[in-house]
């Protein structure tokens, strides 16, 4: 199977004044297309730092990152924005939807920046909302949706541009157990349809939905079930 993500010796050093902190200390792993990976680890172990690099929101201090075979390190900010738009889908702990904007327009947002025309955008957004089971809620604003529904809008938004990978940083962190179960079964379904998912979580029962668990500690990987 082809590698969607290949990290080699990724380091990330944060500099604050004269202090330096190495949040990632040479991380290497690769993820194949169609995998569902959970990233575990204690607070401060570098999970989010690693996810930000995977999401092309941050650059490693050193090391190589190949996304879908492309060397991301060599790209400029506009190219990275394009990569985020076309190859990645984000799901955040805090949903991060635009307030006072109908759900369907939130879902359309990546397509707006992809330059699609409004008809095509609406079609794809409606299909994505259908896929996450939110048909009929298109015109609700985020404040008119439950937490679980908001997270599903976010997932639809992540899906809508057919990304190579969906990155989810503690997607169930703000949800109760029944919403968590809903979201996780949605992820499972999507994964079965062939979508690659990488998800950070603290909870073992959530991580159990994934086919593979990678565990971080102090900027290193200490466990990988593969």
């Amino acid at each position: 199977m082809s590698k969607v993500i290949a990290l080699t010796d990724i380091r990330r050093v944060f500099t604050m004044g004269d202090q330096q902190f190495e949040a990632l200390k040479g991380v290497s792993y690769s993820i194949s297309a169609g995998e569902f990976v959970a990233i575990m680890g204690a607070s401060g172990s570098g999970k989010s730092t690693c996810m930000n690099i995977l999401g092309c929101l941050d650059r490693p201090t050193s090391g190589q990152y190949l996304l879908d075979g492309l060397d991301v390190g060599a790209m400029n900010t506009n190219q990275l924005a394009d990569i985020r738009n076309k190859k990645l889908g984000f799901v955040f702990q805090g949903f991060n939807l635009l307030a006072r904007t109908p759900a369907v327009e939130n879902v359309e947002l990546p397509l707006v920046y992809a330059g699609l025309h409004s008809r095509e955008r609406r079609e794809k957004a409606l299909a994505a909302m259908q896929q996450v089971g939110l048909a009929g809620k298109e015109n609700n604003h985020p404040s008119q949706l439950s937490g679980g529904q908001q997270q599903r809008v976010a997932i639809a938004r992540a899906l809508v541009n057919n990304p190579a990978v969906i990155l989810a940083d503690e997607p169930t962190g703000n949800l109760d157990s029944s919403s968590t179960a809903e979201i996780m079964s949605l992820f499972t379904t999507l994964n079965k349809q062939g979508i690659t998912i990488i998800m950070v979580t603290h909870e073992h029962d959530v991580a159990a939905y994934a086919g593979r668990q990678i565990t971080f500690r102090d900027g290193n990987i200490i466990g990988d079930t593969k």
Partner: protein
Amino acid sequence: MDFLQTLKIALRALRTNKMRSFLTMLGIIIGIASVIAMMAVGSGASYVISQQIASIGSNIILVIPGSTTSGGLRTGSGGAQTLTSDDVKAIMAECPSVDLASGTVRSSGQVVYGNMNWSTVIMGGTPELFEIREWGIANGRGITQQDVDGAVKVCLLGQTVADNLFGSADPVGNIVRIKKIPFTVIGVLERKGQSPQGTDQDDTLFVPLRTAQRNLVRSQHTNNVGALIVKAKSKELLTKAEEEINSLLNQRHRITGGKEPDFSTRNLSEILAVAEQSSKAMSLLLGAVASISLIVGGIGIMNIMLVSVTERTREIGIRMAIGAKKNDILLQFMTEAVLLTMLGGLIGIALGAGGAMVVSRMLEWPTLISFQSISIAFVFSGAVGIFFGFYPARKAAGLNPIDALRYE
């Protein structure tokens, strides 16, 4: 990203904070409105002035007696009687750049008709006077050379005089008494309106020059005229004609060496130049007021845009994470700022035009709202948006997506 979408996003952002958007626009609205209103009133004023100047006639030179010193007493300019009808004839004969000339005398007094009376300005003049001043006859006939030569006791009424003495009745053929002397009314002049100095030009009565010299003004010599009014052959010849008159009169009046001339000339292009200068000063002032108010308005816009960028840091983070490029964010905030100022500009234009119309109704003062002033105001309000929106927009575009996403 297409521009329509950018516009939609900007409109939504402005609608979210309606009151704030409106208050932010207020600076621009007031600035633009006052500029439009003042420009309208100002160009109305210069229109009136140019009309009044035109009402005097074109290519005109006035020759007025200068001050004379007699026994140590200096009379003011115009106080002496140094010009004569012979000067007029000489100017007509010897100055090639002069088209027409007329001597005038001026007096004032009571005019009586039946039991009506009216105090007015009484002018003596020749037929040329009316040609020079481009002043037609509304009713009856004008003053002829025979009237002048024979010192006939006839008079022409200005509209104001005719209205006050005769009401709606026809004055022609009636006898009026001017300073107790009976005169036959031969005609009524066309309406002229106000002079640039603000006097009513129609509040005048004209009699033949010689009639006035003999009967209405006290002077040493009946040949004296109060002032000369001369028309040059063309605008280009105006200064040349003035020079010719000066040298001719200097010669005739034996003004040589250091002797002060006993007359002076004035041409109306000088008055025009003064009017132009004051309208230039006016537009300079307007420009200053406009730029100050627009700068103040612009700073308000910049301030609110900075607040808006801070408030919407998370939104910016989301957009960036999802694929917005720096330029998309820059354009979004610029569009918002320009939309604010242009909307403010439009409202300001409407308010200013409305205000000018109210002023023009209430004060019966003409106002001119030119397409030019409207388009300048519009373009300027847009430019203010671009100028003052750039810094906040650049700040937004320069945000780091991770920090922006984490912003609480």
